[in-house]
């Protein structure tokens, strides 16, 4: 006897519960067509006030200069870079989740891809702020781009900070394109349901006249596949380049060859965690239980277990090689991380990133929403501390006379908190006005969408299509 997918206990159904395309359209579009709820308005106002705090802090920074931050000798890179790497790490997972799962034909991605892509874009916006504002002389920020100028000065293409400029701006642009490409058919759905003239007009512009033609779908699908295929190495490259900011230096604890893949694994890890945090909230608030199902969350938890363990592997390799290298500076850097003045940040990092996700070995925990919610929050905290631990290695550099203790100022703290306002504002607007899930894709993975739906079980699903 050969088991088919439907009878197979080891494979779970990957699709939405409903079998009706119209119901899917309704589930996803109605939240965007009804009046905003009070909760949403309150959340938006809160986000907007945080956003204005951020704007105020940045204004203050521009007015006074970077002295208002806690950075000084020996810690010249403080919260700004920690926040940058943290946000961009979160941002990295979105596109990677979406693109990699697409390439691996993981159909359950439809439950999370639109969310994570949106999250990517807003997280990269938050990340981009920090390198943008930290430069001191903000009025010459255009120096970071290779713009011909009367001074004949060009950027230094051997500097990792310049690679960052290219990597982050490319990443932001490609993520927006990838996201928008996925949105086109869904915007057409919104357009065709629009009841007011203004809404119809605006949506018509952004839907680009999409009419679901099979000839168009063919080019569309190929273009989407290529975008997914290039997004995957892009994500790897961008976080690798972020890791180069540290790793091409000679600073003990920074210069280690495993940094690029280790940063990528950490980015995916934190990104999955934040996607799940937001997804759990949105699922509750918007009632998406039929589309975002328990086994989707289960899969995400397993991914976090995997990436968390990879991050743990990297921590272990760093420690081992620091000892094995026999280099006293290297050995001291790690000794100091774990047992020095900042020992608490190191152990927060280890317990949140390595130990907490190990709970996902247990099926009960993978299916327990409150616990997984707490773990995802812990992971995000842990990943912030990972970057903090790395940056703060500077506090005890080669010259003991200049060792110091770094503390953030209130400006540091409120700028960081303020970025949540930026993220929250955009995310709430996205949740309210755009399709939260990829409508066309959710429909496309329903069994009823298969042109051979209901045919003989054993007939090859693709064979008929290929026989011509």
């Amino acid at each position, binding site marked *: *006897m*050969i*088991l*088919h*997918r439907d009878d*197979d*206990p*080891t*494979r779970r159904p990957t699709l939405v519960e409903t079998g009706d395309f119209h119901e899917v359209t309704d589930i996803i579009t109605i939240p965007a067509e009804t009046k905003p709820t009070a909760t949403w308005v309150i959340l938006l106002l809160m986000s907007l006030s945080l956003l204005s705090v951020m704007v105020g802090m940045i204004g203050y920074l521009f007015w006074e200069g970077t002295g208002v931050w806690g950075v000084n000798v020996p810690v010249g890179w403080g919260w700004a870079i920690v926040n940058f790497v943290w946000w961009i790490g979160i941002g990295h997972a979105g596109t990677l989740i979406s693109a990699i799962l697409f390439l691996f*034909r993981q159909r359950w991605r439809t439950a999370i891809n639109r969310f994570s892509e949106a999250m990517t874009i807003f997280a990269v916006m938050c990340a981009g702020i920090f390198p943008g504002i930290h430069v001191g002389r903000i009025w010459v920020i255009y120096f970071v781009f290779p713009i011909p100028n009367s001074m004949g000065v060009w950027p230094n293409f051997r500097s990792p900070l310049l690679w960052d400029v290219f990597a982050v701006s490319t990443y932001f642009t490609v993520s927006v394109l990838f996201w928008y490409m996925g949105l086109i058919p869904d915007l057409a759905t919104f357009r065709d349901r629009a009841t007011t003239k203004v809404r119809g007009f605006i949506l018509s512009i952004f839907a680009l006249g999409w009419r679901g033609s099979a000839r168009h779908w063919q080019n569309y699908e190929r273009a989407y596949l290529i975008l997914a295929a290039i997004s995957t*190495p892009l994500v*790897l490259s961008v976080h*690798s380049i972020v890791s*180069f900011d540290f*790793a*091409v*230096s*000679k600073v003990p604890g920074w*210069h*280690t*060859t*495993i*940094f*690029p*893949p280790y940063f990528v694994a950490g980015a995916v890890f934190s990104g999955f965690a934040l996607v799940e945090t937001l997804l759990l909230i949105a699922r509750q608030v918007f009632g998406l239980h039929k589309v975002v199902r328990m086994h989707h969350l289960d899969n995400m938890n397993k991914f976090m277990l995997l990436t968390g*363990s990879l991050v743990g*592997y*990297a921590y272990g*390799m*760093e420690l081992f*090689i620091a*000892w*094995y*290298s*026999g*280099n006293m500076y290297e050995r001291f850097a790690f000794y100091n991380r774990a047992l020095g003045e900042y020992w608490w940040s190191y152990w927060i990092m280890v317990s949140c990133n390595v130990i907490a996700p190990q709970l996902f*070995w247990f099926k009960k925990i993978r299916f327990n929403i409150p616990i997984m919610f707490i773990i995802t929050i812990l992971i995000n905290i842990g990943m912030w501390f990972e970057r903090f631990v790395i940056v703060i290695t500077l506090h005890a550099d080669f010259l003991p006379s200049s060792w110091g203790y770094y503390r953030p100022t209130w400006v540091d703290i409120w700028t960081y908190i303020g970025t949540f306002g930026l993220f929250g504002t955009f995310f709430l607007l996205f949740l309210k006005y755009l399709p939260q899930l990829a409508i066309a894709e959710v429909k496309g993975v329903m069994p009823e969408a298969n042109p051979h739906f209901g045919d003989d079980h*054993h*007939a*090859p*699903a*693709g*064979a008929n*299509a*290929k*026989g*011509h």
Partner: protein
Amino acid sequence: MSKDNYRLNDKLGGGPIFLGAGVLGAVLCVVSFMQNRKDFFASYLTAFCFFLAISTGSFFFVFVQHLARSAWSVTIRRVSETVAANLPWMALLFIPVVLGGKDVLPWLDKNMMANDALVHMKHGYLNPTFLYIRLAAYFGLWTVFSLYFLRTSRKQDESKDPALTTQMGKVAAGAAAVFALSQTFFAFDWIMGLDPHWFSTMFGVYFFAGSVVLQYCFLILTSAALRRKTGRKDIFRTDHFHDAGKLLFGHNVFWTYIGFSQFFLIWYANMPEETLFFQHRAAGSWKFISLMLPWCHFAIPFLYLMSWHVKRNIVALSVGCVWLATMCYIDLYWLIQPNFHQAGAHFGLSDIASILAIGGFFLFLFIRRLNSANLIPSGDPRLADCLTYDNGVITNEQH
């Protein structure tokens, strides 16, 4: 659809030829050992790591398929299960290296252990007792897990019990943890340790990346042979080759990424203790190999395998696999042999003898075991999906 439809009676040939090659190689190995011990150990270790990488890479492939619950790979998984189960034999083939002692690992020299400051500092790790305990642990764990997967899968051929699939999925999670550490430390001990002063946190990942590329080459070539032998295009489907080809392509890019990152960070920081590794590989003819690898291991296969016409054409794909497998050998040669031949590459009798000896026995044992049971895991509950899955390519091919 009758049960017998998936019991394949064909056998893969070539066993006696490989056995003969193995015996011939063993004789030549003795000859080359008599001529020059250093040459022999360098070559033997290189050839050993090449075939070991096929097995460990296949072991990785097997447990990943279980973890991912993948259906696409069911029919070709038996090849990987079987070649991973060569790991216990690899332990026997490793004996000459262990007997080599300080001719292989320079730090085993009592003099060096006592007088070399760096080696002395690492004594807690670099000491013979711990080295052999670790070695026993690697091979012990690999034996237990690889035999478990092969035996359970074969048991399922008869019982068709889906519970075994669930069980293998669980064991696979443990296998992943064991594999990550054991393969890393094997590479640290027996490849990185050839130069006990040099270190790189990425080294384990680099060896892993190469082993997975090699694994896909082996898998594709063997499956192509099985497809030709059995004539069962419905079991060894073009889609399988296409997907395995995509993964080969992806993992080769991963290898490049890891290799480039490792080189780049060391090159950029330019610290003497690390740069020496590349300095040694810039000497004499090693420089030629160092410059060749990015082009021949990455650029050419990248452009070649990008086209899906190549990946769906089994002959063209096989050519790519032979090419890449050769590159993987050269990569290992480039990792290992500069520690023995500082002046330049030195390919000779000992290298050919080692490849013949280890490769001959390796393939003989593989074929014998593969032929001793069904060629595909016909009891796997995902077999039906594997035979019908659709990888999204619309072609005009007749199946």
